[in-house]
């Protein structure tokens, strides 16, 4: 075989692959949104508005993290969204918190309208030592308060970690733009009372988490 036909063949191959190339990334992004819209329908309480992405959801929908400026904006917006608990009361009942942490229900299309949601916590975290069926998507929360030196939740030296924990549960994106954790307070998944109970599970020195 001479050189000429081989070059011609290569050029032809280039031409073919060029013709048959997939659309540009921006066009693919547009097609994806179109496809999502066309593929889903509402069912029960799960309406189509759940596909409307806010800035953070859109920016964190890729295998690459968003630009630093975008991440900062998401975190600042999230921090500003946090509603601190009424009366400065951060802690509820750790027993109720444990029940809530075990409960993985809520907000699916098979859930009844207005049904209270669980915390889904054990799906992703180790919490109390006695529950061996725990997930590992999030970090272990066993000894959460103890490891952070919380001996008295009301003490001034505990204030920073207590507030951070509330903020993390309320809107996790305040501290990590693309955190995998739901925004339990911001998205209205959990009530203030429920969040207080989870706080107690994590921080109350009497909670099994801190034994």
């Amino acid at each position: 075989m001479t050189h000429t036909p081989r070059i011609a063949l290569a050029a032809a191959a280039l031409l073919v692959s060029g013709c048959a190339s997939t659309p540009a990334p921006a066009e693919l992004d547009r097609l994806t949104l179109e496809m999502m819209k066309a593929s889903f329908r509402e069912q029960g309480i799960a309406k189509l508005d759940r596909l409307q992405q806010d800035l953070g959801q859109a920016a964190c929908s890729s295998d690459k993290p968003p630009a630093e400026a975008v991440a900062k904006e998401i975190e600042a917006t999230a921090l500003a969204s946090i509603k601190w608990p009424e009366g400065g009361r951060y802690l509820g009942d750790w027993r109720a918190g444990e029940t809530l942490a075990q409960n993985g229900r809520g907000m699916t299309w098979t859930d009844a309208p207005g049904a209270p949601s669980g915390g889904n916590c054990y799906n992703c975290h180790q919490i109390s030592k006695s529950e061996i069926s725990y997930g590992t998507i999030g970090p272990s929360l066993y000894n959460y308060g103890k490891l952070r030196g919380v001996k008295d939740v009301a003490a001034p030296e505990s204030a920073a970690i207590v507030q951070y924990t509330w903020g993390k549960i309320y809107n996790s994106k305040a501290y990590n733009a693309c955190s995998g954790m739901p925004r339990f307070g911001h998205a209205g998944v959990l009530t203030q009372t429920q969040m207080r109970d989870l706080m107690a599970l994590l921080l109350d020195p009497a909670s099994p988490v801190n034994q």
Partner: protein
Amino acid sequence: MRRLIVGAMALACVQLVHAQPTTAEGIARYREMLADGNPADLFEAKGEGLWKQKRGPKVASLEQCDLGKGRGVVKGAFVELPRWFADTQRVQDLESRLLTCMETLQGLDPTVIAATPFGRGEQANMEALAAYVSAASRGQKMSLPQGHTKEREMFELGKRVFFFRGGPYDFSCASCHGEAGKRIRLQDLPELTKNPGDGIGFAAWPAYRVSSGEMWSMQRRLNDCYRQQRFPFPGFASDATIALGVYMGVNAKGAESIAPAIKR
């Protein structure tokens, strides 16, 4: 003497601690015990009967169905799906293609089937057919074609769908399946952004679910993932679900298919 006994007991206790299998080992043993006698066999047999049975308004079997390797070829079809089909001008997954054949060959209404709840009526038949078709490729390696532009485009779209965050929990498929070595409760989560290995993830569905005692196709698997993602309802055999199949299937290239498997 007494001291000796105490010493022996202490030793026994130490041995006990060492002998105590970890939770992961216990779960692995449980799965191993279930693998011998997978009720998916029952669905596979039912599916084979349905494939050959003359049914529907046109009183025809599915034996002339083209699953991508020519009319009536079942063996090897599963590990190459989803793929492009010229007759429908679509990239189709197994269930979507079965739907096409049920319509064109048997005269059944695909919109009615797509709207039927999982596990009932023609949807139950669909699960059995999926079990039968996948079983015919058991032990083969996943090998989805990517020659057609639309197949490559669906891969790209599937990747974007996989990472699409939404709903009140901000979840995407990647929330659970984007990293290796993670689990929900005690269930291991396959990392689906790459080849997760033989018989894991895409290469393990359809599967018999022991929790519900039912056969689940990949369509049903994805549907329940989206339910737990707190998303709206993905249409049966909709393009987003097929695109996800292309993304996961291409990533799983070379992984051995064990479908229909048995799962918690």
